[in-house]
């Protein structure tokens, strides 16, 4: 096959959790690989670490879905833009993007995130209490992994404790496979209405939370703030949940790494759940890895490809926390690199400490071959994870 033949996309991960085996072949080819999305659109796939980083830092390449040619992955109507949802800054390019990032980073500094540890510990503890109260087995995805990030974000946003169950229930509907489109639309409408009400309450009676501080900061309008809150919720929910669950599977298979801090970074690299999240379009002609990409052509930098590039990570398919996994692009790269990344590291650390210390006999309740992986969404993960303790 030459590099001009079209490959069908998306690809599966038969040897889960590894990225599709085709990526290794793509990395060997000169230039980039042209692929056809289920919609029939063609896009350029980028699988080498160096080129994924250069795509994500090139000012001639845009994150804005309103540009002609922006990729639309399967089964979604396409990414929202800041035109649809004011405050949806992940889809803005600099300089429009700068104001949002500047407004938000004080809430996500290393120091600030460290100060959240006790609150995250309380959430993890409570979630384990609730899960274990039901018996000696559970679906870890539903009963733990999805709850923790939703509760953490609601605490960050300043959702009062009495409303957290409502908030958690609605956010779960958004990411549950069996929800219908109608249920999803309704849940996101409820959440948006709730967030708008919260913003108006916080503007009268500010607290010590992100929404109050952003309102006081005055850099964003209340309408933008509601888009920002929805973005934080959606960007930080299933991504984190999938990582927590996949990490439990991987750590239970290699128990010597439980409790080793280096495991977190390696888990992020190894699973690379957000493989199809950072979508781009060229807004000028640009050459990437010797390939001419024309203005208006879509680009998909595959972070799982980059994170399993043997040029950067030796024996990439081995889970080995003793390697230096920093430099992975599981959180993207460039100006859009994940705002929540230090919160994720904290949540994963607290979640594993809680689970493995409180449930030392935790085990997967089905043979590994029976685990149901998510292949068909934008994020890689598990549909369910039956466990017992």
């Amino acid at each position: 096959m030459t590099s001009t033949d079209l490959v069908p996309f998306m690809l599966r991960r038969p040897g889960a959790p590894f990225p599709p085996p085709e990526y290794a072949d793509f990395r060997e080819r000169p230039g980039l690989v042209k692929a056809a999305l289920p919609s029939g659109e063609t896009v350029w796939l980028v699988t080498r670490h160096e080129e994924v980083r250069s795509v994500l830092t090139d000012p001639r390449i845009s994150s804005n879905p309103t540009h002609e040619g922006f990729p639309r992955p399967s089964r979604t109507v396409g990414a929202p833009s800041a035109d649809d949802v004011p405050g949806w800054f992940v889809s803005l390019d600099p300089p429009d993007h700068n104001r949002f990032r500047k407004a938000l980073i004080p809430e996500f500094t290393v120091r600030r995130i460290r100060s959240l540890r006790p609150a995250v510990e309380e959430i993890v503890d409570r979630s384990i209490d609730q899960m274990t109260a039901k018996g000696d087995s559970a679906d870890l995805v539903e009963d733990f992994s999805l709850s923790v990030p939703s509760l953490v974000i609601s605490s960050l946003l300043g959702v009062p404790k009495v409303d957290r169950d409502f908030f958690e229930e609605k956010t779960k509907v958004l990411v549950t496979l069996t929800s219908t489109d109608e249920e999803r639309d309704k849940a996101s409408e409820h959440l948006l209405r709730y967030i708008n009400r919260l913003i108006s309450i916080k503007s009268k009676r500010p607290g010590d939370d992100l929404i109050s501080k952003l309102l006081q900061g005055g850099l964003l309008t209340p309408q933008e703030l509601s888009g920002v809150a929805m973005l934080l919720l959606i960007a930080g929910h299933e991504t984190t949940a999938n990582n927590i669950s996949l990490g439990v599977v991987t750590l239970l298979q290699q128990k010597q790494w439980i409790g080793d801090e280096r495991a977190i970074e390696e888990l992020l690299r190894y699973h690379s759940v957000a493989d199809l999240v950072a979508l781009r379009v060229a807004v000028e002609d640009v050459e990437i890895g010797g390939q001419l990409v024309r203005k208006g052509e879509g680009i998909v930098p595959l972070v799982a490809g980059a994170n399993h590039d043997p040029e950067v990570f030796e024996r990439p398919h081995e889970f080995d926390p003793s390697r230096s996994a920093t430099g992975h692009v599981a959180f993207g790269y460039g100006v859009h690199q994940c705002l929540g990344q230090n919160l994720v590291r904290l949540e994963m650390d607290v979640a594993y400490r809680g689970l493995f210390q409180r449930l030392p006999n935790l085990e997967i309740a089905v043979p590994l071959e029976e685990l149901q992986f998510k292949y068909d969404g934008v994020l890689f993960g598990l549909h369910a994870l039956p466990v017992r303790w």
Partner: protein
Amino acid sequence: MAGISVDTGKCIGSAQCVLAAPDVFDQDDDGFVVVLDDSPSGAAEAAARTARGLCPAQAISVHD
């Protein structure tokens, strides 16, 4: 020994540098990078070079 400079205009507050080289970099209250040691040597210098490679905004320069 190496000289360290940063372009706070480019910084997006990802804190990669703070995690990789805590003796050399910190974040101010606004989340932007600040240099704690602008001429590190030894292990701190090596860590600063790693941070330069990790910085997603390419905001860190290391001068020999």
